Structures are given as structure tokens and as C-alpha cells.
């Protein structure tokens, strides 16, 4: 049993805590939609959002445990390392793109800004260019000290440098062509001054999006709807419907026992509309429901009546052949 926990670093509160049924062995975040990918011992990579108690999606990636997961900067490709293979997945279609075989299980992986995949096992780092396609040779191989074990590899964001953490310490190597050449100063600057850093923290806080927006598809969702207003509208609509169908009767609001999660609205100006066709057939449907209820009541009464005369061993009517 594992647990996944989200902490708000600006405020300091725990946003959500959920139980993971399997033991998690690796974790990474998708930079495009902020979903956490957790690799588990049963070979499943589950995708978690702080808004849902269950994984939003899960992929069976390997036969054994998932040693490491890494995701491309664009959020399109995910590389997972199992006991004997690396597999590369297309995250939009949830399909496998390709796989590479290794004789030794891969311990760490990282994908650079420009799409170079670094894989680490024992004391060797292999760098692959164009990991999406089936490649024969790696772009580069780097070997550390003979008896060292690699624990983590990571690319420096806007430089051609790969950092390697191993049992004897830290070392960095130059990987030509792995860094992003043009940085955007609003996002991140290698030449950030103290003042800029201070400004950036304030701007980050101001632009902070509520965690309720974290979901698989971020293309059109931009904000939260006011729950109260939406509920009031809903109730008003239902009241109108009821009064239209049953003139003269008093409307009693239906109260849900469950609390609703905050709902999201799309960036297009579509408001929640009442299905007009549904409204048209509303009185008929209410009638049908009534009739069904009455039938049920009658059935219940019949059943009760039937129970009494049963032990008299009356012959039951048979079906004609």
C-alpha cells in the first residue's frame, strides 16, 4: 500500500492524500497538465490528479515493476523503464511507440528539452537521440567509475549539460544539442537577477491556478464555476420544470446527500442549457413514472395477497404449449 500526497508550497496546506493500492516505485509529473505519473510494482503506470481519489487513467506499461518514468517537455511522449526494456508511449493516444531491450534494468531516465533521452544503469549513461524511432546505436555513452552505481540523471534546463548522481557523488557531462537555445524570460531565465527572482515569485503566486483545474485535458478549461450560483440556477430550472408539469402543486427541492466537487467551465461562452427536447416530453415522462409507481404498488399488493394462499397447494396455471 502506498500513498500519494499533494502539498501546497505557497500556502503550506495538504491539498489531497490518496491511497495507492500497489507500492509505488517511481514518480514524475507531466509538465503540460500537472498530472502525476506513478509507476507501480505491478507494471502499471497510474495517472493521478489531486481532485480524484482514484487514478485518472492507468496504463499497463511493463510486466514487472516500473523502475522509472520520464515525460517529454511537450507532454506527448512518456518513457518507462521496466526490468528489461524501455518503452516509449504516446500520451495522447495511450499507445506504445517503440521499445528498446536492455540486459540490465535501467535505474534512471531523463528527457532533455530538445528530446534526447538519457538512460542510466550500473555506471553507464546512454544518450539516445530520436527515441521515438527504433534506433540501433545511442548518440553517446558515458561511463563513470567502475564500481559506482548511478542513482539519478537530470538535464540542466537551458544548457547542454547532463548531471549524474552516483554512489561516489555528482558529476556532469556535456551533451551537445540537448539544451533549449531560446529561453523565454517570463518562464525561466538563466540570467535571472535577485530582483527578477523576487518579482518572479510574486508573479507566480498571482498567476497561480487553483488545483481543482488539474485534469487530463487542459485545452479548454480555464476556471471554476461558482458552485452556489450554479446550484441555485439548477434549482430554479427544476422548479420551473416542475411547475410547468404540475400546475398548482408545491415544489420540494431534492437534497443530495453527497457533496458535489467544484465544476469547471469551458473557455467558450457556452452556458449550461436545459435540454429543450427533454422539457417538451417532461409531462409525458412524469405520467409514465407515475404509472410505473402505481404498477409497482399494485405488484407489491398482489405479492402480499399471493403469499397468503400459497401453502394451500393450489394448482398453478400452466402455459399452453
Amino acid at each position, binding site marked *: 500500500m502506498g500513498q500519494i500526497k499533494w502539498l501546497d508550497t505557497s500556502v503550506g496546506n495538504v491539498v489531497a492524500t490518496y491511497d495507492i493500492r500497489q507500492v509505488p516505485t517511481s514518480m514524475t509529473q507531466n509538465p503540460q497538465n500537472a498530472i502525476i505519473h506513478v509507476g507501480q510494482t505491478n507494471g502499471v503506470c497510474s495517472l493521478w490528479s489531486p481532485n480524484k481519489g482514484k487514478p485518472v487513467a492507468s496504463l499497463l506499461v511493463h510486466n514487472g515493476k516500473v523502475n522509472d518514468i520520464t515525460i517529454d517537455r511537450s*507532454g506527448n511522449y512518456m518513457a518507462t523503464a521496466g526490468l528489461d526494456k524501455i518503452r516509449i508511449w504516446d500520451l495522447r493516444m495511450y499507445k506504445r511507440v517503440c521499445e528498446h531491450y536492455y540486459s540490465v534494468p535501467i535505474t534512471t531516465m531523463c528527457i532533455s528539452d530538445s528530446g534526447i533521452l538519457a538512460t542510466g544503469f550500473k555506471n553507464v549513461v546512454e544518450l539516445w537521440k530520436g527515441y521515438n524511432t527504433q534506433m540501433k546505436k545511442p548518440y553517446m555513452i558515458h561511463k563513470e567509475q567502475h564500481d559506482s552505481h548511478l542513482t539519478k540523471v537530470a538535464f540542466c534546463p537551458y544548457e547542454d549539460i547532463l548531471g549524474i548522481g552516483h554512489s561516489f557523488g555528482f558529476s556532469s557531462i556535456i551533451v*551537445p544539442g540537448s539544451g533549449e537555445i531560446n529561453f523565454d524570460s517570463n518562464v525561466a531565465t538563466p540570467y535571472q537577477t535577485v530582483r527578477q527572482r523576487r518579482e518572479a515569485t510574486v508573479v507566480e503566486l498571482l498567476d497561480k491556478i487553483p488545483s481543482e483545474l488539474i485534469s487530463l485535458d487542459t485545452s479548454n478549461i480555464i476556471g471554476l464555476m461558482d458552485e452556489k450560483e450554479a446550484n441555485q440556477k439548477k434549482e430554479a430550472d427544476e422548479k420551473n420544470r416542475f411547475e410547468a408539469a404540475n400546475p398548482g402543486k408545491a415544489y420540494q427541492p431534492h437534497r443530495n446527500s453527497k457533496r458535489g466537487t467544484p465544476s469547471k467551465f469551458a473557455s467558450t461562452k457556452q452556458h449550461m442549457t436545459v435540454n429543450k427536447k427533454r422539457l417538451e416530453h417532461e409531462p409525458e415522462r412524469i405520467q409514465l413514472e407515475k404509472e410505473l409507481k402505481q404498477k409497482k404498488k399494485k405488484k407489491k399488493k398482489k405479492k402480499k395477497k399471493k403469499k397468503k394462499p400459497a401453502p394451500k397447494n393450489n394448482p398453478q396455471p400452466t402455459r399452453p404449449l
Partner: protein
Amino acid sequence: VSTQSTGGVTRNNSALYKNIKSMKVKVLNRDDSLFTRSRSTDIQKRFKNIQPELHPFEKAREYKRALNSAKLEKVFAKPYIGDLSGHYDGVYCMARHHTNLTWLLSGSCSGEIRMWDSSTRKCVADWDSHNGFVRGITYSWSGDRVYSCGSDKLIHLWDLPSSVTGIIRSDTVKTKLQPKTTWMTNNALQAIDHQRKSSLFVTVSANVVNVWDPERSEAVQTLTWGDDTLNTIRFNPIDTHIIAGTSEDRGITLYDIRGNTPIKKLIMEMRSNSLSWNPMEAFNFTFGNEDHNAYTFDMRNLDTAKLVHTDHVSAILAIDYSPTGQEFVTGSYDKTMRIFKSDQSRSRDLYHTKRMQRIFCVLYSGDSNYIFTGSDDTNIRIWKTNASRNLCNNHPRQIEKTNYETALLDRYKDFPEIKSIKRRYVPHKIKKINATKTIIKQSQRRKKDNLRRHRRAGTVPIEKEKEKHIVKTVT
């Protein structure tokens, strides 16, 4: 943009690379001087990469920024700047100089005219001019003379006091000015206005419109239509031969100087109190009516209003267009002042103070950044046109940011959260009166609808709001 350059890399430590002593490697290398500023007085350089991969959650962040800017707009909304006080009685009329941004003239109900320097907020000159109300006041187009008319049937022409023209600024100089020229009329004068780019000025007394030339002792032209007194008069700033005036018979009359005739008359349901021409669109004018509305008309077609601006809760007493022609401000009897956009029927903003009483005159400053209101409580108040905008010399990057924020607010203005933030606090009395007004309107509409439903089709026509308040147009 950084370049990839060659650099030498040596790997001598590993036994595997014994034979290779040096290797040429092309590595990402940034020239620091291109990315950092050369002097501490320079601004920091900015770099952009528009790839969407680097900007996740773009739309959500944009919406959040729109929310923030809506909230900050409310936080920074401090429109009241200061006041020009000194008059002994209510300020009845104001005029601004067409070249000097800071000079402002005001005439009060005690017959006193004051000239103000709005940047220092001090009275530069003040003199007694009339034996009654100062009904109208204006600068000449040459800028060195002042015309004033009052309820004592006199029109005075004053030279600007030497304390002003001599660039010697002193605190309230009570000068004893003598008018350079005086004209007498038969009846009390109601308003005065000066033609642009010439020396002609026009006054209004009883039912007569007089066009004067300062060189002549008699009116150059006299125009009359009907027997009712006229209240205001305004020269069209672009078609300078056209004058518009409002009269007691609930009408607005257009006169032409070249033809020496009145052209058209538009009669409304209630009397109009004030009129202003759009300085950018020569043919549009807006007037404020007693029925709490302001109407924009195209002078070429007086059959329908272009727009009906409703929001005030009492009669509109004063109206003035911004020099940009995009907005106008109205001051009303309900002690508030509203800013409307020329193409919208609802007000953009509302300014009020507990101390500000009935507003008699409003004026935009020459750079359209400030609004002056002269009211019954003897004060002229200075307000900002945009309540939350910083008016000092902004850095181009700051200007870019404010433009971005206004564009954001414009894009997201219909979203419920932002709408609720932008909802403006309205003083309690006005809110109540508005509530009763809406009830009245709704009941009237309901009754009309019922009539229409129970009569033969076509007997009760649907009235357009823009035509409803017009009684007739007369040529």
C-alpha cells in the same frame, strides 16, 4: 539568440580514452553580454519563445490574470484628485482654454468669475463680473479674452488679467477688472458659446439666438423660432456654421449661420438641459434630458435617436464630450456624475461624494484625462477619467502591461466571476430609486404587452426605445 560554438573538451582521466587526447565538440554557448545589461541604469533585456511547450496552462493563466486585473482595478480605483474651492455660491458654468491645459474658468451664481490653474489647484484670478448669475462663460478662440454673459442682460468681454498673462502667479488676486466691451440685450441671457477658429460668438436670451462679432456693437445675426426661451447653445466644433440649442418647449433646434436660418427642430417628451457635440464626429450630438436619459442623435436624421443612455436617476443637468470623442460625462440632479462611452447605452463609471451636491456643469480637461465638476456646493472637483489608471509618465513596459490588462478585461468581461467583481457599488439612495424605476418600467411594459395581446394585431405597435421619447421633428 545564442550560438553554438566550438570548444575543446579533453578527457584524459579514463583508460578507455587513452588514444583520444582532444575532441572538438559543438556546445550551446551563450554570450553573456547579449543577455545581460551593460549598465545598471539600463533596463533588463527580455526574451521570448512562443513555443506552446514552454507555456502550459496558457488559457487558465490568462483567465487568472484577467481576474487579478479586475480585482486590482477596484483596489486602485481612486478617482477623486482634489478640488478648487473659493467661490461663494454655486458654480454655474465652466470653460476650458483650448491650448493651455491647466487654465480653467468658472462662473458662479454670485456673479463672480474665477480663473484657476488646475495643476497647482490655485485660483489665479477672480473678479466680480455680473449682478446676478453668471450664466455662460467662454474663452475666445485666440485664447486671450474671456466672454461672459449673465442674468443682468449684459455680455462682457474681458482681457485676461495681467497677473495671468504675465506669468506671475500669485495666490488669489482679487483684481478689479473692467470689461473691455459690453453688449446689452433685451432679456436675461442664458448661455454663450464661441465659434472655433474665428472671432464670432453666440448668445441666447429668451427666444432669440444672437450671433455677435466683437468688432460690432449690434448682433451680426438674429435667429428665432417659436416663443419659448432657449436654455443652452453650442457651436458644432467641426461644421462651425451649425449651432444647436435646447429650449423650454422641450425642443432642440439646429441653426445654420451661413443660411441665417434655423434648420430643424426636434421635440422630445421632456425638456433637455444641456447639449454637447461630439468633437470627433461632426454630425453627432448628445443632450441630457429631464427624463433621466441622455440621447445621442445624428443631426442628419432626427427621426430616431442613435442611442439612449440610461442610468441616471434624476434629471441630467450637464453634459460634456471628451476631446477624444469616445466618451462623455454627465452630471445630474441626483448628485452623481456618470461617464458613458459614446457607443454604449449604460454608464461605464459613476463618481459621487457625500459632499457633492447638485452638479451644474461638467468639463473634460484638454487631454481627456481629468474631469471637472462644478456643483451647488461652491466647489469644483477634479476627477480622473480612468479611476484606476496611473497618470504619471509610465515606462513603455508599464504601458504595455496596462494595455494587456485592459485587453484581458475586455475579453473576459462576460464571465460570471469577473462580472461580479466589476459590479459597481452604487449609493444607497440611487439604488433604491433605480429599483422603483425598474418596477415602474416593467409594469408599463407588462401592461403594453397585455394590451397588445388582447387587441387586434397591429393596433398597438411595438415602440422602439430610440423613437419612443421623440414627439416630432419639425423643419
